[in-house]
Every structure is written in C-alpha cells, then in structure tokens.
C-alpha cells in the first residue's frame, strides 16, 4: 500500500525519502518557494515554503515526509508570513518591476502576485550595488539578488566551475563572483552553463535579449505561478 500524508486536508501519496515539497509538487499542489529547485539539493534558506506540521513550522523543501503527517500549507496565517518575507526581499534590493526585463518571467514577482502583495509595506533600503557588465554575453544586476544560491549550486554541482558564492553573514550576505578581479569576464562562465539558466529573478541575464517576449506571452502571463510546476528530475528523488 502506498504511504500517504495529509496536506491541507487532502491525502497525498509519497515515496520514501521524499520531502514535503517534492511529494506536494508531484501531486500538483503548490507550495510557494524561491530557493528550492527540483534539480538541486535543497538549501532551506528563503523560508517561503514554511508549512505547519503538527502545529510546528518547518521548511517544506527540507522536511522529509513520514506516514500520517498532517501538513498545513495554504492557510491565511502562513501566507501572511510568506507575504511579509516577500515584502522584505523587495525592500532589501532594488526591484523596479515596470522597467525590469525579467518582469513576467520572475519568480519573485509571480510569488508576490500569488500572495496578494499589494505594496512593499516596509521602507526601502535602496542599496547601491553596481552591475557587472564585463562579460561579453551576460551581465549581472546585483540589485535584484535574493540570495537563493541557485546559481552557486548550479555552478558548483552541475557546471563544476564554482563561479558564484555567497559571502558575508546575516544582512551583509551578498553574491560574489569567484575571480581575483571579482568580474564575470575573468571567469570561464559560458552560455551553456546551468548557472546561466537558473536565476529565478533578474540578476544573471543574457545580454541584448531583454523584452524580446511581448507582454501576454511571458511565463507568468500565461498562468499563475501556482498553476506551473517544474517536473521533478529523477536524480533529485534519489
């Protein structure tokens, strides 16, 4: 008999070793997330995926399911906390959606819409973060980094290049490029890299392609983020 757990009152099957996020996603249930990506080991840092298990909060992307578990996900209480986390991400960086080329394809923006975020609520930090445009094909707009570490994991684990890293602690954490100069041009970063594809927001961008896709045909114009699920890669399930 397949094992099952309860998510928002619905019985969901799962396999041994699966996390709540993996089992939920496979069953077509959406749990908001930013630092989780099905192809990478979970990082558990953004806390957007926070759910309630037997009354206690836990990150769905790192928590392994066990039989009979009762998980709350889509509740007003949890979504209010997620909304506050999202608002903090917006004010920490410089996110100007109307002129951002990632608009409509951005997971942060789509998540904010999903959570019904109407304003940033908190005061903007307006940090000063110069862009790195040194590379011929890519540019890095640090203003929008949400420190999800997906590029770090992709470059280290898939591309085996270790080009990106998160440096500093707490509020001082920031993304760096592993080169003596700190410039992307002085690394062997390339178009084919997995790290060139994973950024959920508008930081690592392919040059000269912004706004090629018209409004109406962008990823999240077609369907809300809650209706779009990444297929789970086989190896991630192991």
């Amino acid at each position, binding site marked *: 008999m397949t094992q099952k757990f309860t998510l928002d009152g619905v019985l969901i099957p799962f396999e041994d070793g699966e996390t709540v996020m993996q089992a939920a996603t496979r069953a077509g249930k959406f749990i908001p997330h930013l630092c989780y990506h099905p192809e990478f080991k979970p990082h558990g840092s953004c806390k957007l995926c926070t759910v309630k298990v037997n009354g206690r909060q836990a990150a769905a992307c790192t928590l392994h399911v066990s039989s009979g578990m009762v998980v709350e996900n889509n509740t007003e209480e949890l979504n209010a906390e997620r909304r506050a986390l999202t608002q903090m991400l917006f004010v920490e960086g410089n996110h*100007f959606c*109307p*002129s951002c*080329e990632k608009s409509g394809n951005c997971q942060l923006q789509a998540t904010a819409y999903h959570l019904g975020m109407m304003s940033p609520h908190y005061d903007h930090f307006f940090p000063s973060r*110069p*862009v790195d*445009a*040194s590379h011929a094909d890519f*540019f890095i707009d640090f203003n929008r980094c949400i420190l999800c570490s997906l590029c770090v994991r992709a470059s280290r684990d898939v591309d085996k290049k270790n080009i990106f890293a998160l440096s500093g602690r707490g509020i001082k954490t920031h993304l760096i490029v592993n080169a003596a100069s700190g410039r992307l041009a002085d690394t062997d970063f390339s178009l084919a890299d997995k790290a060139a594809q994973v950024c959920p927001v508008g930081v690592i961008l392919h*040059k*000269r*392609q*912004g*706004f*090629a*896709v*018209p*409004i*109406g045909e962008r990823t999240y114009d077609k369907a809300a983020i809650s209706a779009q699920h990444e297929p789970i890669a086989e190896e991630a399930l192991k």
Partner: protein
Amino acid sequence: MTSQLETAQHPERLRRVAIDPVSRVEGHGKVTILLDEHNKVHQVRLHIVEFRGFEKFIQGRPYWEVPVMVQRLCGICPVSHHLAASKAMDIIVGVKKLTPTAEKLRRLMHYGQMLQSHALHFFHLSSPDLLFGFDSDVTRRNIVGVAMAHPEIARQGVLLRKFGQEVIRITSGKRIHGTSAVPGGMNKSLSIAERDELLKDIYQIVAWSRDAVQLIKKVHIQDPGLYNSFGTFRSNYMSIVGHNGDLDFYHGKLRARDDNGQIIFDGVDYQHYDRYLEEEVKSWTYMKFPFISALGKEQGWYKVGPLARVQNCNQISTPFAEHERKEFVDYAGGAPMHAPLAYHWTRMIEMLHAAEEIKNLLHDDDLLGNDLMATPGERQWEGVGVIEAPRGTLFHHYRVDENDMVTMANLIVSTTNNNQAMNEAVRNVAHRYLHGREVTDGLLNHIEVAIRAFDPCLSCATHALGKMPLEVELVDPEGRQIDALRRA
C-alpha cells in the same frame, strides 16, 4: 525677441508675487512677479519643477532596458519616451531602417498616443476655459462642468481619449509601461481580432475629431481680439518634418523657421542636433533653455509643438487635416500665427491627422505581418532618437560602451524646448492683466490659461485634474510675506 522682463535691474526693492502651483498642468509650476512701489512689473519668471536627474539614473544601465525605463519620466506621454529611446537604440544596434511592419506598428502606437494626449488636453484641461471663459466660476470650470453644460462634447472627449489608450494598449502590450518597441524593431504585431476591434470605431473617431476642429475654430474666430493677441509674442519655431515636407510625428529631418516664416535650417539629420542647438543654464531654474546656435541665446530660442508643426510643414498627407491646415493658414493671412491660443486650434488639426493616419494604417496588411526585427548592423557607440511628441520635439541622445552599458544620456523634452516661449507668454499676460498690487483670481486664471495653451508637462506622473491647489503669495521687498491666498 529679447526678453524684457526676465531679470529686473534692482530686484531688492521689489515686491514678489508668487503663484504656485499652476493648476491643471501636469506636475507643478510657480510664477513669480516682482513689482516696484508704483506697481510696475519688473520681473516675471515661470519656475518649472522638472524631473532632472533622470539622465544619471540611466547611466550604467544596459541599453536595451532604456526604452522601457524612460517611460517613468512622464505619466502622460510615456509612449513618446519609449519610442524616442527605441529610435536612439536602433542606431546603437546599427539598424537604419526598420521592417515595414515594425515601423507601421510604432507609428500606430505613436498616433494612438497623440490622439489620447491631445484629447485629454483639449477636452479635460482646456475646454472648460474655452467654453465658459477664463474668468468664469472656478467650481464649474472643469470637465465635470463641461459634462453638465455640454454633455455630448464631454462624452466625445472621454471616448476619443479612450480610443487612443486602446491603440496604445494593443500595440504596446499595456495601457502604460508597454514593452513592445525594442532596439531594431518590435516584439509584437497585431492580431486580426485586435485590428478589427480598432477598425469598428475608427470612423466615428475621425468624425468626432473633425467636429473638435470645427468647435475650436469657431471659438477662436468668434473672438479674434482675444484669441489672436492673448499672450502673443513672436518667435522662431522648430519641428521635424517628414518626406516632402509632410507633417510627420514619427520621423523626419529638423527644420526651423524665424518669426516671419523664413527657413533658418532645413533637412538637418537629427543625429547632429547638437551642432545646431545648444542649451543654456540659468541660475534661477533647473530647467534649461535651448536655443539655435547660429542665432545665439538672445535671439535663438524657439517654440515647438502643434502650432510650430502645423506651420512648419509644407502639407499634411491626410485630406481632412490638410483641408483644415489650409483654412488655418488662410486665417493667419499668409504670415505665421504666433498666438498661444492658436495652439488649441492646431492641436485639434493634429488630432484629426492622427485619427486619419490610424484609419489608413488599420487598412494596411503590413500591420499583421510577422517580420518584426531588422537585422542588426554595425554596432554604434552613440545614437540620437527624435520624435514629435504631443507637446513638441523630443530628443533622446545616448552613448553606450563596449559592455553595452549607457555612459551618457541627454534628453531635451518638449516642455524644455518651449521653456522660453512659455516664459514669454506669461510675461505678456502679466503685463496686460496685472493692475495694482492685488493678485486677483482673474490674473491667476489668465496666467494659467497662457501656460496651459502650451500643454506643458511640468513634472511627471500627477493627474489631479483640476484639483491642484493654487497659492498666491505676496512678499515685500525684505522677503516678508504680507499676504497669501490659497484656492483649494
């Protein structure tokens, strides 16, 4: 043409009258008047709070982001900035000619913008003054008052504007902050359904635009004593003109004429605009004063916008608008018309032209094509994009480095081009309508009417139509406030 009232000889002994802010223009403006003890006007200045600093904001950003980003410059004509920046970036990516589909889509978007902006200005902002009189009851002198007294006119105004906004939404992807013009072309064409949606209303739009010209023409002709002389000053005028000297809002060569209509320069490629125009900085305002280099600061300033364009072109390519242009030129009697209030008349001729152009484009199958992007040519380091925005000539000038980032941006917006001209109109009106040392409602109204004729966008983004408070301040020679009047 030199300005008599810009700087008083001995301002320390004069009384300051400040009118702040001017209502029913976009953003904020302030007029200060210095009087001596005999109530003689010594100095009149229009201070414009303009959103400077935007050029800095653009520096260090990737060039392809600029056409979208610059739309934040102006809440009322973002499309003009979108297109002017796109034209500059076409040059950067080495594209000299767009595909026919891309150019026609951009034109359609631009005509939609022209229509909505001119309709907004005429019906919502100006028709209350023109229909009720400059001194009429202020509580009635707004679009709501027009809707009550002339419901059909108000309704047409609202629907004309709405149609223009629909054209923008369909061509740019959104009503505001669209993204469709990209360096080298467009990212979106029109579907048959979208085209047909516009087509079903366009004949009505053309008809109403014709009515609007008749309305303003009648108002103007009925009272030549007022309309031909109110705030009138002589000046040079400038615009781009299209192929064969046609009126063209989207593309062409720069042409300037003097106050008698004689050509100062013509056929100038705007990539070299800075060889023909310069900008003067004055200590009392952030807004610069552009002038024609060959004539110098004193004589070289000019006006832009509908009144300049309609008299600068040789003809208009669409029949109804051309008919109206000829009537206007005949009325002016073979010499250039300089009256600020004639801006309204020419603005409506332009609206009619925009409507006719939209009609023509909607019958052109190129609009439905899929060949949207021209092949990039040799990468350039510098590019200028110029467009005739609703308020006049708009310049966007950029330098882009080898990493694709903008290193220099210079924008001359339409209202800046008209800066000196608006100052002149205000001086003229202050001279004529200020009596004694009392700032009457009548004076305020007249100054506002003069400024509004130019349709300035004084800063950006606010749309508090008719709701802006008006403040008058009387200050004695020592700078103490002796009286203040506030109108909510």
